């Protein structure tokens, strides 16, 4: 990364109803404190959240898109992993 740019940060926001923080976008900031302030100003202007996480983008390790075949496709043919083959006993309600 060039020194002329501030580090990139990924922003996660927990909404009022949500239980988990969700990725909403990214921004640039010189440090974590200002990354949180920038996230507040850029991503919560319309009351989108009650909690913010920021993570420096370089700290995130991602799967390789070129290998997504071997990573994800094998599960496509294993429908038995979905719990849809069970007989639900008559006495069980609200399923």
């Amino acid at each position: 990364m060039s020194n002329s740019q501030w580090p990139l940060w990924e922003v996660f926001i927990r909404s009022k109803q949500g239980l988990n923080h969700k990725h909403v976008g990214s921004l640039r900031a010189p440090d974590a404190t200002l990354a949180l302030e920038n996230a507040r100003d850029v991503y919560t202007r319309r009351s989108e959240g009650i909690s913010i996480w920021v993570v420096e983008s370089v700290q995130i390790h991602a799967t390789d898109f070129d290998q997504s075949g071997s990573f994800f496709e094998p599960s496509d043919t294993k429908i038995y992993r979905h719990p849809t083959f069970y007989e639900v006993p008559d006495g069980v309600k609200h399923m």
Partner: protein
Amino acid sequence: MNEAALYEYVLRMSDDSLILGQRLGEWCGHGPILEEDIAMTNIALDLVGQAISLYDFAVLLEGKDRDHDQLAYLRYENEYKNLLLVEQPNGDFAMTMLRQFFFDAFRLPLFEFLEKSPVEQLAAIAQKSLKETRYHLKHSSEWVIRLGDGTEESHRRAQAAVDHLWRYTHELFYENQHDVELQENGLVPKLSDVQASWMITVQEVLKEATLAIPTNNWKFEGGREGRHSEHMGYILSELQYMQRAYPNMEW
């Protein structure tokens, strides 16, 4: 109640908010980074929002059946009672942040005291504005610290801003007979208490920012009495353009 004195008091606060909001708004689309562009515009809108509430209260006190637009847009320069500090040009980013910091450090304790004022509307406006103002001060303080204690160039620019703006900070604590009257009746805080709190914030933040407080006591004032710097006319011509060109327009 001391309507005339209170009117002047509230008008000053509204004018401070409006003019500083207008100044900050000039950064819109020109911020050093997108994130800061949005941050400054947010703060500008907070200030304009505060100005609207304060003008609404001012017109009630004045009792002349004017509305907030008439106060904001249709007065002459010498009728505006804002501080010289808030009308100073944006300059570079350091100048804008230092101007903001000196103002926020004043506004926060002022609103904290006013929240307890027996004047209900004023207490309500102060209470609503406090959360915004706390954030404004945090934002400007963080920047003052980073600019002062940053690179050689950012330190030089931040110190130049402190040295230039210091002469306008004295006016934050301007008082006239009306203020004394309001203070004696317990309606508004003593400005000496606000000043003590302001000084503590300024000393703490500038120290952390490795910035020096100027030792000269060269002071400028006049805004509170309607005597403005040469910049004010340009601000008003832009601010008032729509209302003057299209009288009574609303949006």
